[in-house]
Every structure is written in structure tokens, then in C-alpha cells.
């Protein structure tokens, strides 16, 4: 293949080619070809720079009889047999084929640099079309456009064959995107909140009817996920949003998950992390292993719970790391591994830190929102490592904004929509809209002025402040309130 392109590119005079000689494209070797990581080529491989024209050319080999075009010379030769024309198949030369890598001709592209060349000709062709080409292929069922025909075909196969539907009405053809969406969907929150008062189904960790779902899920995610698929799952999750928590309560967990608003920006991790993304799939198996029991314990009956079961089981979401008490040990080990952190090759700890922080958060999420009794029955929590401070602040901001509405439910529903990546500005608008309730105190006045003049930097936390103001008032009213009543039930200790 490269051979022919070399010839044609020389003919066109546009490409600079560093190879010479007539070599056949390497036939399929029996041994599995060693694959370099994408964008990090073998240092002693040959770099080939082709012109855009060459890359986009198709069907250069034309049959003289019927004018049928072929992409490869060999295909043309085989076709010529059918016309009873003389044909000759070129053999691969006996000397070892040098590994070739290709650079993208587009100057502004990352892969234009030889050190980031791609190892596959087809790959670079597709890359060039996808990133720097116009999208000529349009899906007829939906409005999506593609530059590469194979992408378009792959899409058309699944377009319309949606399998997953969220309660809010959105449809998904992919399980992982569906799961991620459900983590943030507020429609779920309302439904679960309503269902909250129902008695909990028994959620003891049983032998796993769903354990078989795990290998499948693993398989799903281990197969090289396209970057967009993998990245969104960890991306929102990296905010350390308290995603659905522990085995106990599907309903409450879904509430929590919905309370995690899509604060995460839409910006996916930059492309130089394909390594990380691929590593996410095989991410700590031990962690996932822990999930299976809790997975089963969650998935009882209702479809919403099973969705969460799969959510827990999905390694890409790295929520799967979320569940078990044995976590803390793994966590400290990983933290120490991170501390040592001279091992660039070992990516697992880094990717695990995300799951871990989620894990911890989810455990606590449930403890805050769930009934304490359930918690106690589920497991005796050892001292849990903590949620990240950023996540705590975001949670507090949500709670604060919610509190000003004097109803957490309404608050969450209100917050469900379109939070921008930076929690502050969006919450500010929300907060400005909500009335400051409670009697005006000096504190509230000050805050009112301060925020109007300076512009509240973090609306949610400001709202929390106003709720503090109102809380103070309540404190005065409830001065003789005994502390004991609250402690056991509400704080959710175990």
C-alpha cells in the first residue's frame, strides 16, 4: 500500500516521502503486530508525510476494461483475472519491513509533528478526513454528519435503534452514555424522591444473580471505546460528584446522583490522554470485583434500580469504584502509590484516584440522605477517607441554593437544569431569583449589599449564607431544642 502511494505522490510532486524502493504492503503476519500507543510512535520507524491529495485519493487503480476503481493494486489484479487479462500479484519482499508511521499534512494538527505520528495508513486517512475534512455523509434519520464513510455507516446502523430511555424522555443507543446521563438527570430525582417513602427492598449482599452482567460490562468497556464515549463518563465524574451511593438505597442514591448537577464542563480531556482513556477500561479490577456483590444487592426488581446496578458495574463511569467498605484500604495503598509516583508507566493509581474520591463521596452521600437505619444494617463503616474539598463545596453550594427555597426537593429540581461548568455563575442567577426568606437581619442586609455591589462570586455559597441567616433565626426560636433528638436520626451516623 505505501509503495503505491509513494509512486503516486512522487508523480503528483507534492509529498515528501522518506522511503524509496518497491515494497509490497506487508501481508497479514501470523504473529500479532505490536501496536504502539496512538500518537506515540516507535522511535525508529520511518516517517512518511503524504499530501492531502494522496490521502484522500481513492480507487487509484483502475481496470482498463471496465473502468472499475480499486483502492489496492492487488484487488485490481484479482479483478483482471475475471477479464482473462494477464495479472500478477506482487509478493512481499523477503527482507524485514520497516515500520512506517504517518504524519498528518495539516500544519496545525498535533499529529503533524513526527513524534506524534500515527502508525496506520488507514488511520491517518480517517483522521485527516474526520478532523480536517468536510462532512459529506449525512445521516438520513437524524442530523448528524460525518466526514468518513465508515463512521457514517456505523452510525446509521445504530441510529434509531435506541434501546435505553431515561425517564426524562431522552433516548440513548449506548449504554454507557445512558448511564452517565441518568446520574445527572433530575427527573430521576423527583421520581426517586417520591419513591423514597416506600419501604426499602431488602438489600443484603446476596449471591449474585447479576454477577454475569459484570463480565459483559467489562467486555463492553474493555473493547476500545472511542474517546468521546469513554471520556464523558469519567469527565463528569471527575468533579467528584457524589454519584449514586452504596448498596442500600436505589431511590436515595438516585436522588444523590441527580443532585450532582452537570457542573462539569463539556470539555473533554485533551487528546493526549488516549493512554489514560484506554487504561480506564481495564481500571482496577479489584475495585470492580467488589462491586458485584453490591451490584446485585441494588438491583432488585425495578428498572430504575437495575439501571443503577449497571451504573455501579460500569467501570468506565468509574462510579463502579464506589461501593464497598473494603475500599479505604485500597485507597490508602493507592494514595501511597501516588505519593511515590515515580512510575509514569503505572497509570492505574491515577485513574483510581478519581473512582476513589467518588467512592468515598458516595458512601457519605448515602449517609447524609438515606435513612440511617439502612446504613447501619448494610455495613459497619470504618473511618472513611474523605470527599474532595471541591466536591464538598459544590455540594454545599447546591444545598445552599436549595435551602433558600425552603424546600430541598424544589431546590434540586430547580438546579437540575443546565448548570455551567463553573458552579458559581449559574448558581448566582438562580440565587438572585430566589427570595431571601426570614426576617431581615444585619447579616442579611450586609450580604444583600455586598452581593449587589460586588457581584456574588459563588451564588450557591452565598445562598447558603442567607440560609444561615434564616437558620440563625430558627436557632433563636428553637433555643431550648435538645440536641439529642437530632443526632441519631438525621446526621445519619452509624
Amino acid at each position: 500500500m505505501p509503495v503505491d502511494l509513494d509512486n503516486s505522490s512522487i508523480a503528483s510532486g507534492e509529498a515528501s516521502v522518506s522511503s524509496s524502493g518497491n515494497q509490497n504492503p506487508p501481508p497479514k503476519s501470523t504473529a500479532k503486530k505490536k501496536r504502539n500507543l496512538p500518537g506515540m510512535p516507535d522511535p525508529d520507524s520511518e516517517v512518511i508525510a503524504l499530501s492531502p491529495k494522496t490521502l484522500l485519493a481513492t480507487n487509484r487503480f483502475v481496470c482498463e476494461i471496465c473502468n472499475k476503481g480499486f483502492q489496492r493494486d492487488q484487488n485490481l489484479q484479482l479483478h483482471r483475472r475475471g477479464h482473462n487479462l494477464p495479472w500478477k500479484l506482487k509478493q512481499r519482499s523477503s527482507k524485514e519491513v520497516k515500520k512506517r508511521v504517518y504524519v498528518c499534512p495539516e500544519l496545525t494538527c498535533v499529529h503533524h509533528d513526527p513524534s506524534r505520528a500515527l502508525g496506520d495508513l488507514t488511520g491517518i486517512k480517517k483522521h485527516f478526513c474526520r478532523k480536517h475534512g468536510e462532512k459529506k455523509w449525512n445521516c438520513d434519520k437524524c442530523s448528524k454528519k460525518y466526514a468518513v464513510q465508515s463512521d457514517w455507516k456505523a452510525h446509521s446502523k445504530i441510529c434509531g435503534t435506541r434501546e435505553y430511555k431515561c425517564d426524562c424522555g431522552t433516548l440513548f443507543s449506548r449504554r454507557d452514555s445512558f448511564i452517565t446521563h441518568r446520574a445527572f438527570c433530575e427527573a430521576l430525582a423527583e421520581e426517586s424522591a417520591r419513591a423514597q417513602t416506600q419501604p426499602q427492598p431488602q438489600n443484603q449482599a446476596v449471591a449474585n444473580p447479576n454477577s454475569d452482567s459484570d463480565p459483559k460490562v467489562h467486555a463492553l468497556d474493555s473493547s476500545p471505546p472511542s474517546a468521546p464515549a469513554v471520556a464523558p463518563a469519567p469527565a463528569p465524574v471527575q468533579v467528584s460528584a457524589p454519584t449514586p451511593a452504596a448498596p442500600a438505597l436505589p431511590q436515595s442514591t438516585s436522588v444523590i446522583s441527580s443532585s450532582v448537577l452537570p457542573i462539569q464542563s463539556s470539555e473533554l480531556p485533551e487528546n493526549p490522554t488516549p493512554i489514560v482513556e484506554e487504561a480506564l477500561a481495564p481500571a482496577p479490577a479489584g475495585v470492580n470485583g467488589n462491586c458485584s456483590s453490591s451490584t446485585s444487592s441494588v438491583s432488585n426488581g425495578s428498572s430504575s434500580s437495575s439501571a443503577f446496578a449497571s451504573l455501579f458495574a460500569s467501570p468506565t463511569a468509574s462510579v463502579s469504584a464506589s461501593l464497598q467498605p473494603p475500599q479505604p484500604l485500597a485507597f490508602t495503598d493507592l494514595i501511597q502509590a501516588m505519593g511515590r509516583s515515580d512510575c509514569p508507566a503505572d497509570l492505574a493509581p491515577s485513574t483510581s484516584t478519581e473512582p476513589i474520591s467518588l467512592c468515598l463521596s458516595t458512601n457519605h452521600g448515602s449517609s447524609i440522605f438515606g435513612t440511617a437505619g439502612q446504613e447501619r444494617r448494610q455495613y459497619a463503616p470504618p473511618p472513611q477517607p474523605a470527599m474532595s474539598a471541591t466536591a464538598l463545596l459544590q455540594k454545599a453550594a447546591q444545598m445552599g441554593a436549595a435551602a433558600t427555597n425552603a424546600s430541598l426537593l424544589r431546590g434540586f429540581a430547580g438546579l437540575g437544569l443546565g448548570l455551567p461548568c463553573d458552579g458559581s455563575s449559574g448558581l448566582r442567577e438562580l440565587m438572585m431569583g430566589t427570595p431571601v426568606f426570614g426576617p431581615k437581619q444585619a447579616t442579611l442586609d450586609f450580604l444583600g449589599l455586598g452581593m449587589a455591589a460586588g457581584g456574588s462570586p459563588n451564588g450557591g455559597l452565598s445562598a447558603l449564607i442567607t440560609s444561615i441567616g434564616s437558620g440563625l433565626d430558627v436557632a433563636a426560636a428553637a433555643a431550648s431544642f435538645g440536641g439529642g433528638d437530632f443526632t441519631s436520626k438525621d446526621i445519619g451516623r452509624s
Partner: protein
Amino acid sequence: MFQDESSSVTSSPLQVFSMMSLSPNLGSPYPWLRELKSEERGLYLIHLLLTCANHVATGSLENANIALEQISQLASPDGDTMQRMAAYFTEALADRILKAWPGLHKALNSTRITLVSEEVLVRKLFFEMFPFLKVALVLTNQAIIEAMEGEKMVHIIDLNAAEPAQWIALIQALSARPEGPPHLRITGIHQQKEVLDQMAHRLTEEAEKLDIPFQFNPIVSKLENLDIEKLRVKTGEALAISSVLQLHSLLASDDELIRKKLPLASNNLNGIHLQRALQMNQSTLGELLEKDMVNGYSPSPDSASSSPLSSTASLKVDSFLNALWGLSPKLMLVTEQDSNHNGSTLMERLLESLYSYAALFDCLESTVSRASLERLKVEKMLFGEEIKNILACEGAERKERHEKLEKWIQRLDLACFGNVPLSYYGMLQARRLLQGYNCDGYKMKEGNGSVVICWQDRPLFSISAWRCRK
């Protein structure tokens, strides 16, 4: 839990906290506090911090004291991120309260020993444990190398010459230049002579090893008192200026100017009046700057003479930038924090710094063990001190006036600097460096002709390059 208000027993934890936090009837040690799980504790700490700051801001010290007491039960410099943050934030708030009694404050702080060696160590730790300075180093050096292509005489001015690593790397890169190394002069500015001596030693050693004509000029001076003449910039040499986390301290003197011009008699740092006044003036000045931007390029602050505050508004930082512009540098590299910690009210600054330092503390939590003494030192001696400065100090004392990148861009533009996009190759190196940190949380974003390093979407540091615009 998400039930109607009717069931008061299972009301939200937040309301519980509100009710409980300031009711002194709970009795002094709060045993239930110790049993809180870490997330709840974290949320409660945030709540308490906000409450406390609120009280400090309004001057209700009794209530502030109660809140501090409660926080002290939960906060700890050895605990989880939120506990650590709470420890330093409350220290800052307490410091702020104490400043209302200047005698008391001075008495408590007069015997403090600050070891230069410890400071140097903490700076080194910050350099090593976080990628920020390293990324800045890579981008800066690459920009310098590219700008100085073909130059025979290169002069670098480092506004805070504390870390030799950067210039060592530059020396090595310059010696590998195809056209051979230039004659290199580095002028380092710092307040402590020992640091400059150490730097001179390291750099001359390196240059001699690589056989590069090299000269190091130390200048022991505070940045705000810098005498431009001392820099001895010569004609014919190509000048590059590097400012790493230095410019924001120059914003500190402005409050003084404003206060002098306005009849305020308050020395009370907790006073609402001062804050309101400052707030008013800051916004006017801000508007001033923005107005000038809107009206097109105003090459110098003098054109702002149309507005009332102009007579005072020879802002320290603007005059400093003008002085630098006067040196005709070929390139100026500015690395700054990208957070707004310069709000005029305490609450504004508290809220913003909560988010920023949460991100920084999270970085440490994700990469260093809790038992690490180094981590403790960085948290206490670097972040803790910054937080204390941001929250407890006002006026000329408050040096940590971090501002958002957009404001810096405006200022630099106002001072006739034009943005230079950062080198693609430099970006590549910087990204690789970030990847090498093996931590998903760090992200690099480009935009506005600058690079911003974020932790989980929270922008923390920005790096940009500038040239003189005539």
C-alpha cells in the same frame, strides 16, 4: 429526606446544622460532632466557616467566637482536605479579628521566627509537588528561546529570582542552540540576599560547565521599591522579563492611595464602612479601566484623566508596567494565579478562596499522603500564609491580590503590551510534563493567547507572553 416540611424530625441536615450551630444550649463539648462522617463533617465545616466569616465581617465577635470554637472541634491540619482547609481558614479569620486590637496582635506575632531556609524549602516543595511552576518554566523557556533566535546578547530579568532550576534549564537549552549560545546576562531580584547568592552560585556553575559567557546580577530589593536604573539594561541586548506570581503584590498599594484621597477615618478593619468604601472605589477603578478599554487603546493611564479618580490613579502596578515597557523588552512572560482573591469584601474573598484553595488542597490530597510532612509544610507555610493574607489583611499589607486572567490581560494591554501566542512546541512539552504527573485532575487550557492550568476545571494559574507594542 426530601419530604415536606411537616415532618420536622427528618428535616435536612442543613437545617439541623443551622439550628444547632449557634445555639449555645447544646453544652460545650459536642460529642456528636466527633461522630460525624467525613462528608457531613466537611459540609458542616463549610457551613461553619461561612457563618463565622459572616460574623467577623459584621463585627459580631461573640458569635464568631462560638463558631470558631465549633470549628476547632472538627478542623485539623492532619485530617482530610476540608478539615485542613478549615484549620487554615479559621486561623486567618481569627487573625483578622485579632487585628482589631493591634497591640494584642503585635504582641502575639512579634516573637515569630521565620527561617529563610524553611521558606526556601517550602518554595522548593511547591515547585516539585505541583506541576504549575514546571509548566510555566517549560513554556517560558521555550518562548524565550524562540524569541531570542539569532540574538547574540541576551538579558533576562527575573522579578523573583528564587528557583535556579528555570534558568539552569534555559542555559542548557541555549547552549544547545545551532548557532551557538549567546552572551547571557541574568538579573535576579529578590528580598533575601542569601537566596540570590545561592542562585548566582548555581547558575555560574552551570554556565561554566557549558562554557557560556554568563553574568549574574543580583538585586536585593522589594519589587515595589525597585529602581529601574539598577537593572542596567544596555542597548543592543535582547531583553526578556520573567514575572512569576509577582505582579499581583503590586496591586496592594492602591488601597492606600484611595484611602488617602477619601475622607475615611476608619482604622477598624472589621468595619463595614471601610469595606463598603473600598468596594465602591474598587468598582469605580474597575469601571475606569474598563471604560478605557472600551474607548479603544489608551496607551497610558494618563488618558484616564477624564474621570474623577484619575489624579490618584497612577496605580502602582500600571506605573511599574510602564517602567518595564520603557525598557523595550523583546518578550515578557507573566505567570499569575488565575483566581479573584481581590474582592473588596471579606465574604467575596472568602468564597473565592474557598474554591481555589479547595482545588489546591485537593491536588495535594490526590498526590501526596496525608502523613507527609512536606505536604503539611506547604499547606501551612505557603497556602496557610496566603489565606491569612487574603482574609486577615487589608490595604498595603494584603499582598496576595490574585486576580483573574482577563484583568491582567486588560492591564497589560493598557500598558501597551501585545500578546504573543505561546509556542506550539512549548505547549507540547508542557502537556507531556503534565501527563508525567500521572494525575487526571490537572488540565491545561488554551485561550486568550494564554495557557491556564486547571484542577478539575478550576483555573488556578495562567501563563502568557507579551511583547512591546509601540
